[in-house]
């Protein structure tokens, strides 16, 4: 099972902090999330993807032990 963590507005708007999900690649994972949260579809599409803490290609393959972090870009401090 993939460990998915959501950050920023994605977390606030979905209420999803962390979840365990089945997916063999990033598109499958994002599709499952979009199906679960259709109103946040654009936010999910616009989020940056990190796999095990490193920037990942949006078509990247996933292994069951992987941790995927999703966060919309932020700025301003």
């Amino acid at each position, binding site marked *: 099972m993939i460990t998915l963590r959501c950050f920023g507005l994605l977390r606030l708007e979905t209420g999803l902090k962390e979840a365990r999900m089945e997916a063999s690649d990033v598109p499958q994972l994002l599709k499952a999330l979009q199906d679960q949260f259709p109103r946040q579809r654009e936010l999910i599409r616009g989020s940056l993807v990190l796999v095990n803490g490193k920037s990942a290609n949006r078509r990247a393959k996933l292994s069951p032990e992987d941790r995927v972090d999703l966060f*919309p870009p932020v700025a301003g401090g």
Partner: protein
Amino acid sequence: MESKYCGYMGRVLCIDLTAQAVSDYPWSDRDRELYLGGKIMAAKILADHFTGKEEPLSEENWIVVSTGPLTGTGAPSSARFNISGLSPQTGILASSNCGGSFGIWLKRAGYDALILKGRCPEKTWIEINEEQVLFHNADDLWGTKTSECQQALAKKLTYKKFGKLCIGPAGENLVRYAGIISEERAAGRTGLGSVLGWKNLKAITVTGTKQAPIHNKEKTTAWIKKWTKYLTGHPLTGSQLPKLGTAGLVSSMQMRGLLSTKNYSAGQYEDFDKVSGERLAEDFNITNKGCLTCPIRCARSVRVDGQAVKGPELETLGLLGGNICNNDLQKILEWNHQLDELGMDTISAANTIAWAMEAGEKGLWDSGLRFGSCEELSSIFDDIAHRRGIGNELAEGSKRLSEKYGGKEFAMQAKGLELAAYEPRKAAGQGLGYAVANRGGCHLNGGYLVILEGLGLNTNPTTPKAKADFTMLFQDLMECISASGQCLFTSYAFFPGFLLTKPNGIITKAVNAAIPHIGWAVRFMNKCPLVLAIHLPVFHHTKMIPYAVGMKMNFGRYLRIGERGYNLERMVNCRFGITAENDKLPKRLTDTPQDPKDPTTKVPLEKMKKTYYQARGWDKNGIPTQATLKKLKIK
């Protein structure tokens, strides 16, 4: 002196604290055209006064409180005012910007700025209104915390509506990083609170009924409406900042390796989520708040001891969180409130604590402070503000402590001012900004290049390419936004929204890839801004000025004013001995890679500095050349 321009009140009030006398300081329309207002206006006034021999805690140090032409016009996020002077922390020109309503009230009293010179013969607070300036004894206010002081002032006055600023115990006791508090907002940085403390000045109130004239009311109103709509529709200023505040950056900084951790020895903190903006929003936030006329409303309101108080900004979360290995968010809320009450800069206070923790770990100086052991911190902060025991030493800041005990390589400051929460080894441009910033280690005065380097856009963060040129561009833009009287956060909407909502889109990727290769174009723009006699659709500031003020403005002129301000400040600093040698960072950031396996994860400072000086028109020693000063009409 009356002004032909609208937006301004046309007078600068000069208060001689020693003689308890007031006068008008001459300020002409030519000055307004060249220096606009705010921090640049203050820099000009101080440049005409400082010779380079003045001491921060002396009668010769002037404090300038200034507004911009847009302050009080209703322009978005325009309730800002600036405080400048000579910093006891850095020994050079200081400026600190503050929200709240003091600037608006100063204009209602009929003044664009006020100058404080000399020293009050006794503990004093000053009352300013349209007709007079009154000097009151402040014996009963001395020793009060900042909210207590402001409440006491309200009881003393016969009217209810007024602006106020004050210092807390930290300023009274000359803590080098004491700030000035106005309502709940802080002019926190650079230690000007202790200058007021030295001058025996506890507080200032100001009231009035005047209104700044507006040049073209119809166009101004329409433009404010359009700009407000743009800001509220933008993903950063309309969504992220209102919903998460600056605190929302913690997680992204963690992901990018930018979150200062254990005194900047790392860029990621394992317990970051416990002190993140998301957790703040979920578990502690009551509501978001904003300054007058601000549609962004980035401030947080949280509950401490049953009382709704201002919540922490990103800097405080990062520096009192991972940087001292503390994962207790409730404690950070309490300390944040306590530091505001004491009138002390959270960034410098937290950094000084982190330095002391590491110095203890390395056996250089045992203050009793240890990473992750924060139970006593509240009483330590109190001791600092009152200069008691170990607090008396900590009140000096990390630079002076490291000069005394060793450990300069991990005293995380530049020119004496402690760094913000961005660990720059994975954001080279931000590192350059910290090193060269006029007021010392400031993320904003440094140009805030991190917005290109992982927070916002996603260009190569470690390459030095084009970073110097973008640093100059952003510094100059922010300089002028600040001088206008507006919040720097309005500049974040400079980036079209789709670059942020579609980070994986082809255009965004192309922009990210192109940035390191367009330094030459940015250099041209910086060198010849006046060819840009245009208004950019994403940069609303330049049209606001002709509409509200009646002053000719376009993007190029605006940029040139910012450049003039930046060079003017540098010139003043050079009088106080600043050269290229002072534009430096602690060795930890320049010599030790954050990731031992990746040698690029350190700040390539010298290389970027060289390019930066060339771009700025400064010589190899970092001194503005005569040709540069002449070009900018700086005498």
